[in-house]
């Protein structure tokens, strides 16, 4: 495994994925295209250019009143959890 593959494997784990050896060539290829994109942008002068995080200035500039609305029940909140016990999501133990 070369340096790029090792970096991508580690980045995969940080993104919560175990990348298999079979998946690695396609990931390396995509990474090369991605880095080509980064290079293209690198050549564009953005000195004194602010970021544009949304298409235009969004209108909502206030916070709504802190009143409960659209409340969901505990049962509903847990409906899609794969494992539930006593109204709580069940996961493997962290400590023994």
């Amino acid at each position: 495994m070369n340096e790029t593959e090792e970096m991508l494997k580690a980045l995969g784990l940080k993104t919560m994925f175990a990348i298999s050896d079979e998946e690695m060539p396609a990931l390396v290829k995509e990474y090369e295209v991605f880095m080509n994109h980064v290079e293209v942008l690198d050549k564009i002068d953005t000195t004194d250019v602010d970021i544009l995080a949304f298409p235009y200035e969004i209108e909502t500039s206030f916070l709504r009143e802190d009143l409960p609305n659209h409340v969901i029940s505990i049962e509903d909140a847990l409906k899609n959890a794969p494992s539930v016990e006593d109204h709580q999501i069940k996961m493997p133990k962290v400590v023994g």
Partner: protein
Amino acid sequence: MYGLTITQLHDMLKNKEIDIKTYYEQLFSDTNEVQQRLNAFVTITKEEALAKLDHFQFDENNWLSGIPFVAKDNYSTKGIKTTASSRMLEHYVPIYNAHVIDKLAKKDCIMIGKSSMDELAMGGTNKSALTGPVGNPYDATRIAGGSSGGSAAIVGSGLVPFALGSDTGDSIRKPAGYCGVIGFKPTWGRISRYGVIPYASSLDHVGAFTRSVEDMAIVIEAMSGRDERDMTSSNRPVEAYYDHLTSDIQDKKIAVIQNIYDQISNSEIKENFDHIIDLYKKMGCTVDFVEYDETLLKAMLPTYTIIANSEATSNHACLDGVKYGTRVDAATPDEVMIASRTNGFGAHIKRRFILGNLALATQNQEKMFRKAQRVRRLIVEELNKIYENYDVILGPTAGHVAAKIEEEETDRLTDEYLILENHLVLGNFAGTPSLTLPCGFVDEMPIGINIMGKLFEEQTVLNAAYALEKELGLKNKYAKGEA
């Protein structure tokens, strides 16, 4: 009963030419036929739809009363599976409706199913759907396009008058062009996105597919408006798009971006495009070719890829098999999440998330993610210069017809691909309303033209499309396949 538009079906119900229960019985029989041919549905909601008919009362003053529709499978639907065509959400059943679903229900629309899409809306072919590729209604061996391929194909088959889609880069407008239907994403903020599974929030739009501009005006009007649960939705009043439809577009100023036009290599598509320019001129419009900074045009895909992947990896960090999602058991909480995510997503999704994470990493964020956001501003400013002098921008939807399903992906670094096949993303960067209209056929496959207007000027876009639709005579075209 293929090929009914909203207005046609409404009039038939109003004039009692058709019994609604009989119509829906036939519709579900046709639905099975379409599904067999195109594989465009993830879920068919026959039981829920027929239950609604039990209490249904037709309202002749409401165009949408009793009208069937299909929602892309990333619209949350209470009690109905919403998978976003991903293994991770294969069994996910939302406990609430997307705002748009509620709005359409209040209008007495009846949802007949959820449509297939590229996994988590990331893709342009619909080949990454968990349920397999979707066929094009004009040739089932070709792609429907993506990511809203199922919705485009279903409307293009003539089954229902409208369907819902979402569009982050061109995911409504490209498949609309490939399937010979109208696809419209109004201004970012015009329609609430609450309850639509996100891809990249600063680029995500919701919209629809129809087979007539009149129908599109009706549907978009019903979907639009402020929603307190989506802070990015606009307070601006919703216009009466349908009532204000007019084909009198004299004196409108239309721009064609020269460098995009120059990339059209298919002579028939170019000829068709030139013909449309002539038609607009005959209607009294001014059509001018304008230049757009070529470096910025070539930066569209790089900017999009970096922003979209970064926002996507952040948005979908919650898909871990803990609170919801398909879980794979393992020894520790971390291992559960890693195993669930590794098993739950397709290979291309994992690649996009990993590269998005690369751009967001502290050491890379300024050079990659922030840089892309700065270039985005330059791209939008360059576009807005055109809007200082023009009402709409006209462009080809794609440089070719829908590819064969088995065809390999094209080279993503050629000028033709970077510019011609990606320019629709300008509408996502800037949030401007953008509509694709069927404009002809090449090799017996449909092609589309794109009309993009100024922010919140949906009416101008609809009118430009309405006028062209009349000239072209391609209203309500569909392909239902061999009987």
